[in-house]
């Protein structure tokens, strides 16, 4: 059978299996097993254990559980509340200061925790009631938190970027750097929209000013700055070849555990166990998907599907921006139904050869892909962040939350467009720091 037809059949089978509600990891694995047996015979199964094992058994993947532990440690503490408080105390006199505090706290916390739902919960619990109290519309309060929470998969250190780096064999250090300015760009777009919306609705910013003494402004800093130092420290040691991502992540995880113990007295065995068990669950889930996607990628490539699809698309000779547009639509739809990690491991090995063949930068593409995944996090039906917010602010209806999130989705699309016009926003920093 022609490899392209095999590819289409494989895609149909994956969609069918995943629609039954079976776990993504086992759906990908079953598809691989079926196609190997059908096209290469039963003996070809002898490689599956080795391929699965090798897919997980890589030192760079060690960074995933480490970053997750780091995030879980931070998320288990009231660090999110303090982060929000600190920004609010310092920015209260700036018009729209509360909005800036909310989204800013989201972006910092999201970077630390790397988890969108954890960010929404941690910042939202404080931020949403505070915004309501000062008369901001409900939809704006929830929308800005939902959108702010998604930034964690773009701003380094990001587990999503690590997964992209592993599945496309690109440098994780470069990917982290590529995410920095686009992350700031989206943060700014979110803030600008939120302030503009509040202003247009006739919101009186002066009514939102709280009074804080200098003492209050400074006393909160020792609880917040160490966490910022960890992010900066991790980025710092990653460059210049000081340490590998796994080493940086391991040390970051230990530091965060020590910090939450020192600052927030989180030392009870029960709490520590909760941090460890929730991180273990999350990393087992991600690594099982990575293992089975290694098997899936092996299957597609041994049946020449990957190569044929890339050749076929290159042969179509469409304009590369039309191609990019179609890829974006495809990713967006995939992101509506699947979590970011699953979309990346399934599509990146197939998409990357196409992307580079038509002359796009793989690091720039990682950013575009990630923003598409962020949109998926705040759109139904999966839209994890929307449900988290519904959980912490049950008095606000889901349609209101959704309506509030919509403009922020548009901000992300605008962000993608800006990055298409100025790809340097993503590529300049990695090229500058690590050379071309």
């Amino acid at each position, binding site marked *: 059978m022609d490899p392209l037809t095999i590819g289409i059949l494989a895609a149909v089978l994956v969609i069918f*299996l*995943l*629609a*039954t*509600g*079976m*776990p*993504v*990891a*086992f*759906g990908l*694995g*079953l598809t691989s*097993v079926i196609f190997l047996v059908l096209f290469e015979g039963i003996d070809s*199964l*002898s490689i*599956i*254990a*080795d391929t*699965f*094992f090798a897919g*997980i*058994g890589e*030192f760079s*993947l*060690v960074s995933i*559980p*480490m970053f997750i*532990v780091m995030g879980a440690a931070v*998320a288990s503490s009231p660090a999110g509340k303090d982060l929000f408080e600190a920004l609010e105390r310092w920015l209260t006199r700036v018009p729209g200061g509360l909005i800036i505090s909310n989204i800013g706290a989201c972006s910092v916390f999201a970077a630390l925790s790397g*988890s969108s739902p*954890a960010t929404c919960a941690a910042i939202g619990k404080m931020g949403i009631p505070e915004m309501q109290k000062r008369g901001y519309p409900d939809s704006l309060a929830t929308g800005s938190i939902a959108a702010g929470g998604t930034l964690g998969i773009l701003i380094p250190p990001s587990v999503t970027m690590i997964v992209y780096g592993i599945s496309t064999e690109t440098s994780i250090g470069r990917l982290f750097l590529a995410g920095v300015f686009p992350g700031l760009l989206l943060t700014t777009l979110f803030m600008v929209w939120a302030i503009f919306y509040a202003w247009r609705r006739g919101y009186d910013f002066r009514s939102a000013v709280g009074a804080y003494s200098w003492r209050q402004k400074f006393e909160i800093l020792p609880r917040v700055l160490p966490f910022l130092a960890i992010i900066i420290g991790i980025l710092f040691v990653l460059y210049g070849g*000081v*340490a590998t991502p*796994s080493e940086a992540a*391991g*040390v970051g*995880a*230990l530091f965060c555990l020590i910090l939450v113990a020192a600052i927030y007295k989180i030392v009870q065995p029960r709490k520590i*166990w*909760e941090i*460890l*068990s*929730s*991180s*273990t*669950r*999350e*990393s*087992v*889930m991600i*690594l*099982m*998907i990575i*293992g089975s996607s290694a098997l899936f990628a092996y299957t597609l490539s041994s049946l020449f599907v990957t190569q044929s699809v890339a050749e076929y698309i290159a042969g179509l000779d469409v304009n590369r921006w039309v191609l990019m547009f179609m890829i974006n639509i495809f990713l967006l739809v995939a992101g509506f*139904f699947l*979590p970011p990690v*699953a979309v990346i491991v399934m599509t990146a090995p197939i998409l990357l050869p196409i992307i580079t063949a038509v002359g796009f930068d793989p690091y720039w593409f990682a950013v575009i892909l990630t923003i598409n995944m962020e949109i998926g996090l705040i759109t139904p*039906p*999966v839209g994890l962040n929307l449900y988290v917010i519904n959980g912490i602010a049950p008095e606000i209806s889901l349609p209101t939350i959704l309506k509030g999130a919509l403009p922020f989705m548009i901000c992300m699309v605008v962000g993608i467009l800006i990055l298409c016009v100025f790809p340097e926003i993503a590529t300049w920093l990695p090229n500058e720091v690590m050379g071309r």
Partner: protein
Amino acid sequence: MTKFVSFINVLSRIFGVFSAALVASAILVVCQMVVMRYVLNASTVWQTEYVTYAIVAATFMGSPYVLLVKGHVNVDLLPHYLGGGARKALAIFASLLALAFCSVIAWQSYEFFYEAYDGGWETDSVWALPLWIPYLPMVLGLSLLCVQYVAEILSTAFDLAPQTEGSTISDGGRD
């Protein structure tokens, strides 16, 4: 049958605790390695391999526990729109499909493990770790995963409530 299901659930939880302990040990070893390398400028022998295999072992051994606490991510759109009976039937069907894959890979992992053991395979580092050691958790974890799936199917089919009896042990978590 309830006894069988609760026994398997307890076993999966024990595997889960072991898996979390492996993750914790990996963090400590990474930090020890960083100190050795960058502070003491000493060379490290076994750390990189230990950490890599500890995470692999944690993944396979933790997998049945993650299944028990419904942590393996899936697309629950269709089940969401189905009514009671149809949803139950679909859940059993999906679990059978997953069990099919898990059995194949559990069986293959045993073959792979046996080959490594029989052939005396070692890692090609200075440490020269016998490879059957990191392969063993794969066999154990995937085998228990299959049995856990059987338990899941039984408890869905006969409406046993496996979550209530073991829930004194905290699941922690973000859900």
